[in-house]
């Protein structure tokens, strides 16, 4: 047994994050750790990696009881973590990041050349699309994830923890990551693999452990459990994971975009999907429509009227909202209360005579908390304290309150759990039924097929195909990758 966790407990200021975390990982095994957000996966892993100290319970590494006070101690014992959100220093190069904290030295000086060479060798060995000398801030999210992986590879750890490594990766990059994970497993390393994508389990997991509400509720070999049973263990109740969208009844044209490479219409009541590989220009399209990178040519019409959209402010005024890909960076003021986030884009509605009306903010927030089932103790809680799914609901509530006719969703289900995904989709359908026009960018083809009324496929910055909802993943990939 490589790692043995029994009855791990941890609380933060009275909140019990973990009440009974059990996990047994063997060498040469990919052990999937799953559970909804807030189930305690990250806390458990942070304890293993020495970032948190447990309150109680037992932790054994290769049979010996261990207790890590600092990440460096865990690291020395052969535990390495590949973080989900990049914990990289943006101004340093790839190689500098890979060796951050364990620099190779020649005398008292850092041996840059050796570090560059070793990094380049690791990159070449795995054929990553990376350059050891590039500054990390110039990399895409996927490339940053690869840097994290190279960093773990470099340290030659015996236990590697992958925290949702594929959540920001494209299809082909995901395949590459799987290959690396298997390679590492075959070299006898123990791997803990945290994921939200249950479909990945078939590809990668040897064993599955499920956490719910801070406790390990089930653990067994992958082959002995169905996806349905897993979902049941995760949420503790039956969930209709397969979401069915009702019949489409498109209304009048809400948005008419005539941009270089992207001419299309969105109608009231419609959810239009945008598919494409990473870098195909999907996010860029959203940003242009929302005025972040205004178009130099072409035109955008909202409700039949031509609108100049040079900033998000003008986009919102024209009736276009954007639920961004990265809600922590651009969607939420994380340290403000939930209610402040919900009213942020539409303060005029609760102002009178220049003053925000007492109680109006709370009233609005309570209304949306009930309608969107935002799970929080109080609307005065900071947005930071919510799970990913609930944060996303706050972002959606913000735009529901602003009541724009067009809502763009860029990867709306990124980093949120199964239960919350179904709720987000239900909300999107509700919005469409109200007569809003929705655009949804997603890298999850099954989700697009499930939710969208029709799908536009982008490649190299242009829309190359429009497919009906009855299309297949193969068809979409065909257009996205090579063209018809």
């Amino acid at each position: 047994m490589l790692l043995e966790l029994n009855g791990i407990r941890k609380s933060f200021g009275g909140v019990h994050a973990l009440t009974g975390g059990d996990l047994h990982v063997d060498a040469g095994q990919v052990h999937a750790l799953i559970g909804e957000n807030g189930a305690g996966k990250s806390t458990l892993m942070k304890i293993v990696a020495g970032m948190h100290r447990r309150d109680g319970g037992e932790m054994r590494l290769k049979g010996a009881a261990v207790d890590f006070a600092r990440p460096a101690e865990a690291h020395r014992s052969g535990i390495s973590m590949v973080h989900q959100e990049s914990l990289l220093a943006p101004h340093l190069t790839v190689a500098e990041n890979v060796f951050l904290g364990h620099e190779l030295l020649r005398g008292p000086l850092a041996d840059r050349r050796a570090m560059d060479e070793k990094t380049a060798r690791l990159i070449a060995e795995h054929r990553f699309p990376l350059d050891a000398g590039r500054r990390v801030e110039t990399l895409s999210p996927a490339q940053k994830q690869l840097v994290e992986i190279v960093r773990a590879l470099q340290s030659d750890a015996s236990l590697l923890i992958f925290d949702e490594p594929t959540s920001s990766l494209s299809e082909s990059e995901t395949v590459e990551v799987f290959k690396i994970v298997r390679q590492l497993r075959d070299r006898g390393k123990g791997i803990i693999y945290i994921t939200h994508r249950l479909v990945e389990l078939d590809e990668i997991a040897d064993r599955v452990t499920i956490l719910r509400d801070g406790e390990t509720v089930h653990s067994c070999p992958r082959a002995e459990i169905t996806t349905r049973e897993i979902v049941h263990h995760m949420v503790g109740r039956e969930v209709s994971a397969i979401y069915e969208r009702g019949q489409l009844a498109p209304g009048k044209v809400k948005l008419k975009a005539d941009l270089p490479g992207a001419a299309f219409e969105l109608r009231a009541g419609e959810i239009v999907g945008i598919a494409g590989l990473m870098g195909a220009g999907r996010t860029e399209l959203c940003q242009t429509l929302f005025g972040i990178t205004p178009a130099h040519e072409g035109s955008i019409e909202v409700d039949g009227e031509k609108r100049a959209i040079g900033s998000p402010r003008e986009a919102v005024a024209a009736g276009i909202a954007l639920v961004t890909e990265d809600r922590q960076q651009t969607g939420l003021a994380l340290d403000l209360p939930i209610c402040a986030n919900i009213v942020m884009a539409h303060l005029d509605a609760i102002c009178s005579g220049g003053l925000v009306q007492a109680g109006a903010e709370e009233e609005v927030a309570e209304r949306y908390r009930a309608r969107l089932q935002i799970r929080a103790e109080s609307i005065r809680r900071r947005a930071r304290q919510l799970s990913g799914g609930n944060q996303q609901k706050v972002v959606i509530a913000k735009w529901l309150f602003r009541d724009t006719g067009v809502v763009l969703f860029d990867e709306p289900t990124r980093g949120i759990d199964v239960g919350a995904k179904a709720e987000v989709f239900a909300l999107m359908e509700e919005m469409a039924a109200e007569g809003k026009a929705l655009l949804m960018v997603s890298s999850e083809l099954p989700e697009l097929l499930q939710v969208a009324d029709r799908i536009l496929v982008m490649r190299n910055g242009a829309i190359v195909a429009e497919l009906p909802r009855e299309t297949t993943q193969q068809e979409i990939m065909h257009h996205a990758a090579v063209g018809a």
Partner: protein
Amino acid sequence: MKLQSGMLQRLLPFFSLIALFLILSIASPYFLTATNLSSVVRQTAVINIMALGMTLVIVAGGIDLSVGSILAFAGVMGTMTMVGSGSVLLGIAAGVLAGFVWGFANGFMITSLKIPPFIVTLGTLGIVRGLTLVVTDGLPVVGLPKEHSFLGEGTVGPAPFVLIVLVVCAAIVHVALHSTKLGRYTYAIGSNEEAAVYAGIPVGRYKIAIYAISGMLTGLAAMIETSRLMTGQPTAGVAYELQVIAAVVIGGGSLTGGEGTVIGTLIGAFIMGLLSNGSDLLGVNPYWQQAIIGAIIIMAVALDEARKRRFAT
């Protein structure tokens, strides 16, 4: 339970102020006298009023290092106008306007040149001080109408007039910060500027407004300073920015933005005022005062950080 102790820590600056007040009342027979207390109010009014503006700036995630220089510039402009026109009110208006202009300029440069506020205001700190010295040739403006002394030294009933000015300003800034769009946007911008832009908030315009308001309040503080000295000193306000920032920070303002309150700032400013007054009364070497205030800043922020860490997750 956890909420209560969190609340307790949040109120720590307030309790510290009360404790300080009680200790000084016991330690010195001169402390709890009308003369001494009104002198504390008069002495701290200038820093206090500047700190109100700085609260807005810091909550918005900014910083203004130039307020000390703006104080001197506005004081000189106001007193020159006063001497030239013979009108006290016109002079005060000119001082406030001068502060407004520099605050606006700071905000404009920060948003349009996209330079961090630390750098812009470090620049204007020098520019404004230099211009003040050029305009006055380094000499104080004298010959102010004697009615001008009322602003800083006058009393209304038992209360120093500056106390009324301070309370009115504080009330206005408090309401602005909590119940107007400007205030809400200030918190939003300070908490996550990018998210504020993405919410369709005209962030640039509001940032300019925030610096301009801070400048205006500094202009008003400048006129109080000139009223107390009855001259317009081109060298006034040196290093005031540090005291002003300290007041905001001791009162719970966060230099990373999104946090801070008017009440906290007032408490912070009065803690510093009492410390300095108490040291004088108790005969503590004034050189020590600076060291003590420095230590208090670090302690206040350390406690605040500990509270945030404990109640974050």
